[in-house]
Every structure is written in structure tokens, then in C-alpha cells.
């Protein structure tokens, strides 16, 4: 087995495990965000939309 193939196997092994680790972390992150920032009836949506217009206009 050549050195290049060995390195490719190493990257493939670390890579696929790495993707799973990243996604597992993001999974936990979603659970945490969902726990600490649960949905509540969000009021003032119309007030926010007025703010949106104002801020966007400012940027133009």
C-alpha cells in the first residue's frame, strides 16, 4: 500500500468520524437551544415589522 493511499484512508476515517462528531454536537446544540429558548407566543410582531422597514431604509 502506497503512502498516498494510507494518507487517504486516514483522512477518510477521520473525516467521516469528524462529520458525525460535528453533527452530534449540532444535534446537542439544537436540543439545548430548544430547551433554553422554548417557543412562547411572541407578541409585538407588528411593532417589529415597523422597525424592519425603518432599519432597512436607513441602510439604503
Amino acid at each position, binding site marked *: 500500500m502506497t503512502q498516498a*493511499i494510507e494518507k487517504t484512508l486516514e483522512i*477518510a476515517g*477521520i473525516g467521516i468520524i469528524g462529520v458525525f462528531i460535528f453533527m452530534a*454536537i449540532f444535534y446537542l446544540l439544537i436540543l439545548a*437551544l430548544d430547551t433554553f429558548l422554548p417557543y412562547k407566543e411572541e407578541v409585538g410582531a407588528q411593532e417589529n415589522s415597523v422597525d424592519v422597514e425603518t432599519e432597512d431604509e436607513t441602510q439604503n
Partner: protein
Amino acid sequence: MGLEQLMPAIASITWQDLVMIAIGLILIYLAIAKNYEPTLLLPIGFGAILVNIPFSSAITQIDPATGQAVEGVLNTFFNAGIVTEIFPLLIFVAIGAMIDFSPLFRNPSLLLFGAAAQFGIFMTMIFASLLGYDLREAASIGIIGAADGPTSIVVASRFAPNLLGPISVAAYSYMALVPIIQPPVIRLLTTKKERLIRMSTAGNYNKKISKKALIAFPITVTIVAGIIAPSSLALIGFLMFGNLIRECGVLNKLSLAAQNELASLVTLLLGITIASTMTSDRFIRVDTLIIIALGLFAFIFDTFGGVIFAKFMNLFRKEGNKINPMIGACGISAFPMSARVIHQMGQKEDPFNYLLMPAISANVGGQIGSVVAGGIILTLVPLLA
């Protein structure tokens, strides 16, 4: 005065140029008549014609009078937009602004399919390496399996710019061919009974998600990804930046601009600029055919990875809470095409089986997974090459 002086292009045209012009025409035909990724394949096809007419001023030519190189506009675009990675990263901002992560919050476990369906990337890397490609080239070919054009372009432009043309064409062509590639692979790997499984977590899909959580998600993902793998930050960071613009609720105009004008303009420039690498001397090689074959291999193994992982997860799940293994195939980044294909396959087996919502969740996971895989490759290859 001979033909050579009057019409130098006709006198100098080679059969390779003609083949490339024919390839350009085929890509335009596929884009218009078959609607295969027209936003990319049409500019790429037209660009292929543009750069393969001898002495085309669209690409760099040597001025016979002075002997100096006169830079063509497509080479200027290439150096400014692809070499610097600006075009694909701007596309990421646009994609980020288009993605709604709330389906993932409704069923976060499906995020893992976004990891499993990257299997094809690494299998293809190994296979390319066995065929004699060096590590950087093998990684660039493998990334076709990300089913994500901008990620493929970033990785290939950094590690194997000489292969950028065929890699981009393969990536975008196979994304368009997902409805043809995935179903036979899925049918081969699953039984009819498995394909009939109904996802019992349908109730989750009515769950409302907090705006604050959706705003915090792109910020925390960027910080976490940056701490673990800083090299992945350009990819993940720009994607999440686009998503933050979408979710923050105070930049609606910017969000719409990113989703529409920015996406359209950069896609247009990206396509035609990639074509600058599709000159006959670079493209008509055995390598191109091998890369296109390996791209198909990558998509097949992505589907394999997702489906087999779903079957593996089912080993630990109780009856009535099983995952339809077809959902695993949605872990690729081709959004929303893959989710739609799986939903249609499910409906073909059982018209009352609605797999669209879980399929969308897994497909959104795939969009994150492909970028993460690209970031990991960008980190690991320079360390080991």
C-alpha cells in the same frame, strides 16, 4: 491573403474544440429542454462554447504582435472570483438566506443523516487514490459527493484547480440527476416492508420553534465550528451569516436580496467563469471521464451511506418508532430535490404515507453536513499532504 489570415479561428479549429463546443451545446440543451440545473448548466455550456473558439478574446491569448499575454475577461473573473473563493462564498450567503432550519428543530435526530450521507465523499476519495490521483486531487474528486456545488468549487479550486471544470460539471450534473440516481439504489438496499414504514413522529412537525432559538443557532454553530475547526469557518460562517440575515427579522430586504439578486448574479458569474477552465486541452482527457464516473460513484455511495445508517438506527428503535430507511438518502445536500424524490417514492409505495416533512429535515441536515465535510477536508488535507 489566405484563409488563415482572413478567418484564423476556422483555420485553427481542432476536433477537440469541436467536441467541446458540442459538449457546450449538450449542456445548454439539458438546461433548457430537460430543466437540469439550468441556472448553472446553461452558463457553463455557453461558456464552454465561448472559450473553445480559437483565439477567443474571452480567455487569455498571446498577442502575436507583441508576444505578450492579453488577459481575457473570463480569466479575470476566474482570478477575482474563484481563486479568491469570493463567488462560492457569496453563494453560501445566498443559500444560508434560503435555508429554514426549523425542520431540524422539529426532529433533530435526523440531522445525523446529514453525516451518514457524506459517506460517498470519503469512499470516492479512497477510490480516486487507488486510481493514482494524489491526495489533493483525490479529495477534490471525492467532494463531488457533497452534492453541493459551491463546496466542490471551494475545495477543488484550492487543491486541484486543473480539475475544477470536470468536477464542477460532474457535481452540478449529478445534482440534477438525483431523481434518476437515488431511486434504484434505494430499492436495491431496502425491502418493500421497509419502504412502507410510516414515520410516527408526524406530531413534531406542528411544533412551533422560538425565533430566539433560530437566531441563536447560526451564531452558536459558527462559534462551535470555528473553535473546533477554524479552517472550516469560511464555508460554515458564510452559510450561517446568510441564515442569520434571514432569521434576525430586521434585515428582510437584505435577506430577500441575498436570496434573489445576490444568488442570481453570482450564480450567473460562477457558471460562466467555471467554463473558462473547460478549454479542450484541459477537458478532453481520460481524467475527465474518470472524474465523471467517480462523481456517479460518490452519489451512489452517499445514498448507500444514508440508507444503511437508517437501517442501523432502526436496530435500536422500537416497533412503531422506526425510521423509513429511504429518509437516510435525503442526507445529501441536493435540496429540496432529494426530499421530493423520497416523498414521491414513499407515495408510490403507499399513497397515504407522507414522508415529506422528515425528508425535508434530513435534507436540511445534509446541507449542513456537506459544508462540514468540506471544512473537514480543507483542514485535514494540508495537514497530511
